[in-house]
């Protein structure tokens, strides 16, 4: 899992809070690792794609599953639901699919934030501006999060 490229143990100078993943992240030069959807080349990409593909499969099932089931088995799928009164297929498509996509989006954004945490990455103006390039002209800041 952890590949040792340039990552020797002597870099442990900054306190014990840094996890293995974060250290690995610091030792990775992302500009030298191939980008290929089917063949992730960094631990971060591997972790990220695991989330992406899990989400994608769940999404495909939620969005195209009910319609396909309705096509295959119209009888049971068009039955009236108790209490709500919807025909089952109508409910799953009209409410289940958009609602499911929304829930999955929230799930993904949370997962992705956790990945950042795991790899010790912080967004926002502070750490991100370390490069300190002179182009940061718009210091007025818009409405923020």
């Amino acid at each position, binding site marked *: 899992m952890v590949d040792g490229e340039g990552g020797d143990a002597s870099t442990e100078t900054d306190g014990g809070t840094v996890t293995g993943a974060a250290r690995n992240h610091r030792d990775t030069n992302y500009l030298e690792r*191939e*980008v290929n959807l089917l063949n992730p080349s960094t631990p971060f990409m591997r972790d990220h794609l695991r989330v992406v593909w899990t989400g994608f499969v769940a999404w495909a099932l939620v969005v195209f599953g009910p319609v396909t089931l309705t096509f295959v088995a119209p009888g049971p799928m068009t039955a009236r639901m108790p209490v709500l*009164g919807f025909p089952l297929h109508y409910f799953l498509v009209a409410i289940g699919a958009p609602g499911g*996509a929304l829930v999955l989006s929230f799930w993904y954004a949370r997962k992705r934030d956790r990945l950042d945490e795991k790899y010790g*990455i912080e*967004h926002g103006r502070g750490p*991100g*501006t370390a*490069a300190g390039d002179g182009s940061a002209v718009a210091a007025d800041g818009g*409405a923020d999060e």
Partner: protein
Amino acid sequence: MTAGAFLQSGLLPEGLNVSFKLAPAVLVVAMLALFLGIGYAFRVADTEEMWVAGRSIGNVENGMAIGANWMSAASYLGMAALIALSGFYGLAFVVGWSAGYFILLIFLAAQMRRFGKYTAPDFVGDRFNSDAARAIAAVTTFLIGFVYAIGQARGMGLVGLYIFGDVGIPGLSGYQSMVVLMMAITVGYLTLSGMMGATKNMAVQYVILIVAFLVGLYAVGLSQGYSTALPQIEYGAMIGSLSSEFSEPFVNESYYLWIATAFSLVVGTCGLPHVLVRFYTVENERTARWSTVWGLFFICLLYLSAPAFAAFGTDLYSRNIGAVYGDPGMTSAAGDVIVVLATQLAELPEWFVGLVAAGGIAAAIATVSGLFIAGSSAISHDIYANIVNEDASQRRQVLVGRASIVALGVVTTLAALDPAAPIAALVSYAFSLAGAVLFPMFFLGLWWENTNRQGALAGMTTGLIVWTVPMINEVLPTYVGSGEPYSATLAAAVPAIGSALIAVPVVFAVTIGVSLVTDEPDMETKRLVRQCHSPEPMTRMQSAEDVAATDGGEPGDD
């Protein structure tokens, strides 16, 4: 498509009260004045601000802008129309237009933000190092803006009839006069304000349109005894009492067409230039992600309500006007205003119906703004400044941009005088185009570094062809022929409305195949792609190009 064939220029929604009404007219004028006022307050002159609002927009505000930019007359009017007219098939639009955002989120949003270019053609041009690729993308962007806006113009024309009646421009029908009037207003507004104004407006426009839609839905539901607290769920119980056409699956259209339509709308969502430009306006990639989630939430508020509105409208129509299905049934013109018609038939006060109608106009203007800005920047920035005249001054670029907005307005108006199909169908043609041509370039360009220039050119050309053939087969005849497709077999196999289902796999195969047999892209390009995926944060004004060109990604650099 549904009942597209017999539409004539004298489109008249039966049952709709067409006359000049003071209170609604005042409401619309006040709303437009508000937009212009905000646009004026945030007026801009330099290009950086005009195109991406200085990259200063945050999560919720950008989410609302995504929502307003996204929800056009096709969502506000057209979706309920298709659900009412085509029953279960109409839900393919609800699903395709919402679920696509998830794909956008997991595969494209943050990476696009990191790439950090102004426009979709910029992305294609820089990623594939090719002015030809940039030009194809720019032409596609322009074409999308045009096709998409025809649907908006139709929506504004029909809804405007309720508010202003027949304004009677000589030689034109009431509907046509209204299209001309509304498009003139939209273009006038747009030339006055750049994107900063437009983005600020978008949050306002979102609030206006969602309030108008939901208040309308609740009022109809309460006054008619259909629903109380949650019409979005309660309409389920009345489905049984509506005609079976409303909910029975695959009676109007086949399973294949359902899937093709939904798929096209999903990939179209991920390929639409005016949607992607919203990710350039945020501060960082995390904001790009979360504002997508917010955007989808704001969109779902309306999308979960539209079927309820359609159910109420269908019931009111059949009780007050006549049978919705069968012959003659409800026309597509009446369908396209079903949201307004329902409030009118529920005998709510005139100003209130006017409010719901005004929401539809707000939706159309917001989206046309986004489309025309994307389209005009394609012309002024990508074709004019990058290819035609490389020394163009900013002032000249802005001038060319404004001229192309006017040009877009004129061609759109002309095409909308005698539109080929209902609003939602017109808009879906633009989605098929975006899905067929731009989506594969974005996706492969970002996720496979070996995609090269030759692959992109071959792929985009293929996409354009696969989109154009069914358009000529099905849509051209409605303007110049009998209205029937030239080849019924082709129309069934590759429907214009869902042609991306065929186009996307073909374009992927062509792009990958050609990329494999030609030279790999150079190291600089590969570093650019890698920088888009690096988890390393970037500063607000940085683009992937800046970082990839230096050694910004070296270990220990932070």
